[in-house]
């Protein structure tokens, strides 16, 4: 038997992504058909298409995958997931990659993590989303110049009774916060 010219593939990143994704074991069945990228409404703005990213995961290109903008372009429309002939939960893989990338501070080229953190920060505090609080905090700290463009829209929403000036807090916020604290203790990430 001749020596193989290919080095042994490093499967550790593949295993890590599978462990982070519910149903992630399907990932090994990717046959690189490209249905995901072809279905994705945002693939043109991704630095790698979903198909490429799945190949890179299998190839163990951890750093490149985690610093990619691909998963941050994903808006969870699930078009790829429903069309994947191998039943790979691609949207959930994108969520998993977002989480790993966030934990390691690799998501530096997008405002998506800031929006996510601001959103869940308000949820943790009030139990409900608070659109004005979300918009003002997120834009102020991340894209203050855009606030000028958002002003007229906010005003029109307000005049039609579609924007509240105050957050709604759920009655049993202590109960929700206890559940969140326990979930974090059990292995969640902040």
């Amino acid at each position, binding site marked *: 038997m001749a020596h193989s010219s290919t080095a042994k593939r490093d499967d550790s990143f593949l295993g890590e992504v599978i462990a982070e994704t*519910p149903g992630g074991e399907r990932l090994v069945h990717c046959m690189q058909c490209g249905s995901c990228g072809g279905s994705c409404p945002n693939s043109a*703005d991704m630095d790698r298409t979903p198909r490429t990213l799945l190949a890179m995961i299998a190839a163990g290109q951890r750093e490149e995958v985690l610093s990619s903008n691909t998963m*941050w372009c994903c*808006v969870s429309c699930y*078009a790829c997931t429903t069309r994947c002939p191998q039943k790979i939960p691609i949207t959930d893989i994108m969520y998993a990659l977002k989480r790993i990338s966030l934990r390691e501070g690799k998501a530096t080229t997008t405002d998506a*993590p800031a929006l996510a953190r601001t959103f869940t920060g308000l949820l943790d505090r009030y139990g409900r989303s608070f659109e004005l609080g979300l918009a003002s905090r997120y834009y102020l700290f991340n894209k203050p110049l855009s606030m000028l463009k958002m002003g007229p829209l906010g005003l*029109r929403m307000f005049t039609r*009774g579609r924007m509240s000036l105050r957050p709604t807090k759920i009655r049993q916020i202590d109960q929700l916060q206890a*559940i969140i604290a*326990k979930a974090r203790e059990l292995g969640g990430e902040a």
Partner: protein
Amino acid sequence: MKYAYYPGCSLECNALAYDVSVRHVADVLGLTLAEIDDWNCCGATEYFSQDELTAAAVIARNLALVEPGVNQVVAPCAACYCNLIKVDHLMADNPAMGEKINQALAAGKLHYKPGSVRVRHMLDVIYEDVGEAAVREKVVQPLTGLKIAPYYGCQVVRPLTGGDDTEHPTRMDKIFTWLGAEVVNYPVKTHCCGGHMTQISEPQAFEMIRRILQSATSNGADMILCACPMCQLNLDAYQDRVAAEFKTPLRMPVLYFTQMLGLALGVDAEKLGFGKEIVSAESVVQSKLRPATLENTRS
């Protein structure tokens, strides 16, 4: 029939027209909606992007709060609907995860048994549970002469659908055919509206919004009907900026499907939240619907 009702945060304010129209339509169609007491936000896509277990526990609290004896919950918001189903399935398919979620819920003296509450979208409840005969029987203001573009978006039909086709859903089409409207066939009815991309990257979001508005316009629609607050917000509130960006005239009223359904069922337009849309639907509703029948509204 009695359902637990999970309005979700958008329906409290920016999509108030959706909430009030859902409630009025349910009333006329004999559906009892009992709002889940002290429900919390589902976290949309934002919690799953950071922390899966916490995301799931936050969502599961709502399922655990459904009153005993009620085994179905209606969520009109596509994101809420998708999240509630996602967590129910996650707990059922992965018992270890289900156990952890219940440990978290136990910190709030709650428990949820996977599969004990069936999550439904309002569109499916009207199509399946009320059905054609009962809807037709209640129509007092046929939508004859009105061309509607049903817009399904993403999360109502994907990934865990209530039964409609994921590629070519037709339930909203059929409901509006029962009401006498002309349903416009346009190719992007399940394309994504951009979701939260309007906040993150406007160039990306605006192109997605343009496609939908322009396709509905060029196929002759009088209005787009939505089954999701995010879709309605993106298509309605950003419409003038998208038109300016692409230097293309756009004037497409975007309403919730329950608003037009309510009108057909004879509910007064004001009670259905008409007038809250940014691109006004008033002139198209007035000009297309026969004035004589407009008086047939229920008080």
